[in-house]
């Protein structure tokens, strides 16, 4: 294999050879090479296959805008990723890469059959066909289309790497480290601003890395660059970041940046993050992202070996690689002439410079002749020869529109330049306007929506001197808008390579344009013909053209194709480009790893898991858990050989017969305190609070302003001016926020303060006939006898020596207490009660048993028996509404026509005819099981359990007009097509008289 490496050129580290593989073959490059530069150095141009036609493709660019040279990269288990740009991926020892979208091999790909059929596969082809017969779409056509589509393969294993993120705040963020970016950073840095300078590549310098022949301030470009880097690094207020891509520009100068940390390393430190997402908040932003070179559109312009002239210059000067030994240069811009000169000076035999322009600056022509390079002005290119690698370029003279006789130029590379497009993607993320500059034939930044400055080629400026000057000006402007002062620096530039050029549509040809495969979007195989067809079919906006042809929707997001596409569409419409519009660039600037967005939020840290102070006891004792809001709660405590059903039956029995212990710490707790606390409670909750005595507790019901049930809980009055409010586990934050809203914005006159104490207290519930017997010995400072402490009361005392708020309440129908102690003592108290409880066969129970016990008593669970469309009357708890109250949150809505109307769904009990049958929660209820579908459904089962104490199943349901259907028989169709019949009852299934509360 021939070596295309040029001695004395490039910045790769010749002392450090690096081996890697591509499609199983081992290649050698040097530290500092990208996969693309290393393969080119080995004479390999063919790196991929195109999306639709599977045409052989070579590398086109030297940067992140590469559409063709996408490879799969691997570094061990779980570390494969598809579609990596060979022009960005640095090589390291052991790197494994493979080409994509081909079968069986890159050189011989059966998918290329599509290329033969390309007359069929025109733009919009899919919309016009595959419709006959209809059923074939799902079964035949679509599977085929999908199989052919896609580029690389998806990863198949879990990614073992982790990803970091960091917030960063600075005065001036400079994006892009070419001459203008460096000048801006130097200027702002010298003025003392906190500066961050970022570049997506491994090394800073941008254009300067490809233009070593320029001299700045009397020093060769690379010496000056080294000096500038040293100066920036010496400033404590400046931070330089390489391999860092600004991917998105968000509101108020928030920039998302992704830094590649390890993808270039041979040996990755154990546990090192692969990438870091930087969320930067900058006071001022300088965009210095340069310009993107445009390909030329002509038949065969996608043949491997045809690449951008600027890319060839970069491969030569930055990597020391000659992309061809006999290149032809095809251009409409002066810049490519310099590429030709550099190639020639590096030993290539430049076959010719073909320029579509009839007149080109004399100086350039002289320099070309001096190097013995033949020149063809006013010529077009009409074809290429060669399939896996270009062998010749067919050119013809063009005189006033007439295309003359062809001439074949044998070559091993064609270096093209169709002009340059300012890189303004990030600017357009800000919704800043892009204005058409008729002279520059380019969109340039117009109206700004953010504190941003654009510098250099981004404003259509050309040449190193102009870039430096504009950069330092942007830096100074940024400093000034920060209120600082900075003068623009001056730079002496010699041997600058300024230039100009023209933009044009697909090149004229002497052959039938209908047969030409002149590509605009390489990866998506969109040709000039497709764009003209789209326009012919009525796609008059560039958005329509884009979506119809998929031009600009490839992984380069139109960086190469958008302007050429626009120029051709405008020509087809006979309009100026701006009248056809411009497709908006969207984040991210380049494709960005999902993991970098996810950051730390994976596995256990994907979301917070809240645990109570008693959680670890439950874990040690074999609890199964269920997630409730952000909490994990003990669901049930299975013993050896028990399933949930058995465990729950046992827990219920033990609690009803003796005593059960339950961790209720997740219940929301809010201190409502202040002279107007009672008035506030009266306005918030449906219940009346004025007459509730200190030391007493009451069930509280909270509605939304729409009249539907939002939350409930037991509320204790600790003092005249202090309520201890409890909420549902999931509702705690919502309820506090709702209370604060009314207090702060509707009733600011009320002297009330709210404090969340949910996590100040651990809450242990004891339920069962022996609850008091167990608790009594631990209590000091309070008499908890039946007379002294009636049901629904609260007292402050100590329990086992811990300060406590002790409630006597019951969510089970049994004698019950809820003990609140400072959280740190929760587990200690639990274990004391546990030990003492052994004499009563105390049983720990979880949320499932709690649900069964409350259902046996007909107590509702907000969110299960209610669903956000249920009023207090519907739920059968109208008694909780203070009838004399003139107003409370939601009261007015209860009078709306459809809320007072007949036939609303009301909460009733259901007893199945077969006591052994437990209904499915969510099952629907009908009056007539034999009606045809769609059936008239009159309600659904909200709660359904096996009741051990009753020895039968019980259920609650919301049923239309349910209160008037007592003792009716209703029907519940099952999954299996059967029907269960049940009788409508009240919801208090167990001890309706409440006798069991009266334990002495």
């Amino acid at each position, binding site marked *: 294999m021939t070596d295309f490496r040029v001695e004395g050129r490039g910045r790769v580290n010749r002392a450090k050879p690096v081996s890697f593989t591509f499609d199983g073959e081992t290649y050698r490059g040097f530290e500092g090479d990208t996969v693309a530069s290393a393969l080119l150095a080995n004479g390999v141009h063919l790196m991929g296959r195109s999306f639709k036609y599977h045409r052989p493709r070579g590398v086109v660019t030297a940067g992140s805008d590469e559409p063709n040279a996408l490879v799969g990269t691997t570094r061990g288990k779980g570390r494969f990723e598809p579609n990596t740009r060979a022009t960005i991926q640095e090589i390291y020892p052991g790197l494994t890469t493979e080409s994509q979208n081909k079968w069986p091999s890159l050189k011989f790909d059966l998918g290329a059959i599509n290329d033969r059929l390309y007359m069929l596969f025109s733009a919009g082809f899919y919309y016009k066909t595959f419709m006959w017969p209809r059923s074939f779409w799902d079964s035949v056509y679509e599977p085929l289309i999908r199989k052919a589509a896609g580029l690389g393969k998806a990863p198949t294993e879990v990614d073992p790497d*982790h990803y*970091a*993120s*960091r*917030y*960063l*705040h600075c005065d001036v963020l400079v994006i892009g480290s070419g001459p203008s970016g460096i000048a801006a950073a130097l200027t702002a840095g010298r003025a003392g601003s906190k500066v961050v300078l970022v570049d997506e590549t491994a090394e800073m310098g941008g254009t300067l890395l490809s233009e070593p022949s320029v001299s700045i301030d009397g020093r060769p470009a690379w010496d000056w660059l080294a000096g500038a880097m040293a100066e920036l690094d010496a400033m404590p207020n400046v931070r330089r970041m390489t391999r860092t891509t600004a991917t998105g520009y968000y509101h108020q100068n928030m920039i998302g940046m992704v830094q590649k*940390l*390890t993808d270039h390393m041979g040996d990755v*430190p*154990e*546990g*090192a*993050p692969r990438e*870091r997402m930087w*969320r930067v*908040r900058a006071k001022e932003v300088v965009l210095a992202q340069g310009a993107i070179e445009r390909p030329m559109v002509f038949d065969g312009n996608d043949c491997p070996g045809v690449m951008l002239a600027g890319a060839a210059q970069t491969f030569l000067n930055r990597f020391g690689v000659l992309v061809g030994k006999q290149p032809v240069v095809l251009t409409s811009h002066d810049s490519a002439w310099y590429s030709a000169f550099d190639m020639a000076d590096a030993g290539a035999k430049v076959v010719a410079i073909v320029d579509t322009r009839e007149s080109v600056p004399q100086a350039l022509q002289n320099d070309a002749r001096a190097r013995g390079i033949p020149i063809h002005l006013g010529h077009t290119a009409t074809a290429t020869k060669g399939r896996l690698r270009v062998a010749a370029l067919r050119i013809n003279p063009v005189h006033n529109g007439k295309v003359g006789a062809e001439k074949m130029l044998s070559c091993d590379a064609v270096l093209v330049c169709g002009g340059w497009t300012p890189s303004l993607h990030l600017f357009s993320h800000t919704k800043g306007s892009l204005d058409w500059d008729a002279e520059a034939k380019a969109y340039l930044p117009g109206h700004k929506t953010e504190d941003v400055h654009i510098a250099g080629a981004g404003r259509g400026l050309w040449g190193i001197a102009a870039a430096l000057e504009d950069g330092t000006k942007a830096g100074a402007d940024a400093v000034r808008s920060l209120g600082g002062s900075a003068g623009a620096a001056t730079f002496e530039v010699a041997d600058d390579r300024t230039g100009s050029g023209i933009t044009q549509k697909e090149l004229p040809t002497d052959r039938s344009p209908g047969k030409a495969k002149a590509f605009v979007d390489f990866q998506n195989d969109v040709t000039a013909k497709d764009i003209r067809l789209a326009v012919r079919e009525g796609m008059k906006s560039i958005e329509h053209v884009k979506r119809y042809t998929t031009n600009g929707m490839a992984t380069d997001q139109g960086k190469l194709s958008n302007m050429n596409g626009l120029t051709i569409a405008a020509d087809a419409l006979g309009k100026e480009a701006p009248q056809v519009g411009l497709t908006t660039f969207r984040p991210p600037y380049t494709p960005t790893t999902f993991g970098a967005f996810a950051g*730390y939020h994976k596995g*256990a*840290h994907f*979301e*917070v*898991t*809240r*645990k*109570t*102070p008693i959680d670890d006891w439950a874990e040690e004792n074999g609890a199964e858990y269920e997630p409730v809001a*952000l*909490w994990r709660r003990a669901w049930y405590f299975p013993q050896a050989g028990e399933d949930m059903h058995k465990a729950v039956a046992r827990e219920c029995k033990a609690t009803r017969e003796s005593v059960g212990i339950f961790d209720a710490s997740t219940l929301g707790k809010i*201190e409502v*305190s*202040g*002279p107007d606390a009672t008035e506030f409670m009266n306005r918030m909750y449906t219940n009346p609070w004025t007459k509730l005595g200190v030391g007493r507790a009451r069930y509280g019901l909270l509605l939304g302003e729409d009249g539907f049930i939002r939350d409930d809980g037991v509320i204790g009055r600790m003092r005249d*001016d202090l309520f201890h409010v409890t909420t549902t586990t999931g509702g705690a934050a919502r309820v506090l926020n709702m209370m604060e809203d009314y207090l702060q914005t509707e009733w600011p006159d009320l*002297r009330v*303060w709210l*404090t*969340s*104490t*949910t*996590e*100040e*207290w651990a809450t242990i519930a004891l339920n069962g006939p022996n609850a008091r017997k167990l608790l009594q010995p631990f209590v000091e400072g309070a008499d908890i006898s039946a007379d002294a402490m009636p049901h629904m009361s609260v007292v402050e005392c100590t329990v086992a020596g811990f300060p406590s708020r002790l409630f006597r309440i019951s969510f089970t129908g049994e004698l019950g207490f809820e003990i609140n102690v*400072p*959280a*740190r003592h929760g587990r200690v108290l639990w274990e004391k009660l546990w030990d003492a409880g052994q004499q009563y066969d105390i049983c720990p129970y979880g949320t499932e048993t709690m649900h069964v016990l409350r259902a046996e008593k007909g107590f509702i669970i907000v969110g299960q028996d209610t669903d956000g469309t249920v009023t207090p009357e519907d739920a059968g708890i109208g008694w909780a509404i203070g009838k004399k109250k003139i107003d409370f949150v939601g009261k007015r809505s209860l009078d709306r026509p459809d809320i007072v109307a007949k036939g609303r769904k009301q909460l009733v009990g259901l007893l199945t005819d077969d006591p052994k049958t437990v209904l499915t929660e969510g099952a629907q209820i009908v009056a007539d099981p034999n009606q045809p579908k769609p059936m008239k459904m009159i309600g659904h089962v909200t709660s359904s359990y096996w009741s051990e104490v009753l020895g039968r199943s019980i259920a609650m349901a919301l049923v239309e007009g349910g209160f008037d259907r007592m003792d009716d028989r209703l029907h519940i169709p099952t999954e299996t097509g059967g029907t269960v019949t049940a009788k409508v009852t009240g919801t208090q299934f167990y001890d309706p008289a409440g006798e069991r509360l009266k334990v002495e």
Partner: protein
Amino acid sequence: MNAPVTSFDAVSVAVLPPVARFNLRIAPADLAVASRIFGLTLPAKIGEGARNGDRAAYCIGPDEWLLHAAEVDQSAIMSGFDTARAETPHSITVLSDREIIIGITGPAAIDLLSTCCPLDLSRMAVGHAKRTVFDYAQVVLIRDGDDAFRLEVWRSFFPHVHGLLEIGVRELAIGL
């Protein structure tokens, strides 16, 4: 709550012992009363803090103060406020167990906090405190020195926050 203490030379994360902590809500006009009872002049501006021995007060809302004191003084402080309530309405709530306190010290303290805290911490003055977020958790962040911070985290959020800090310390130790 004996979580492991994580550290390398640039930053260390430690779980600090609990202190008596109170949430005080009172009309700014009555601040003098509160200051007298607490024995420390309470700062009037959100974010500011005042400290004297083991007593500290941080203003975290227009009418909200976070008070720190020795655990032995907890009940005395409560009864002090209790007696004043009649003529000077206010709300004081013991929160000694609601949060767990994490100390973060070392030259890389700000880098570590910046993994999950969106604030520009260079703008935060020493001795100040503010309620903010650390990842998904609401926290109170107190700056004790140029490279010394405290995070007060709700008990049930502690494992999440502390876990993230441990990851961050490892990350900083690797130096990438």
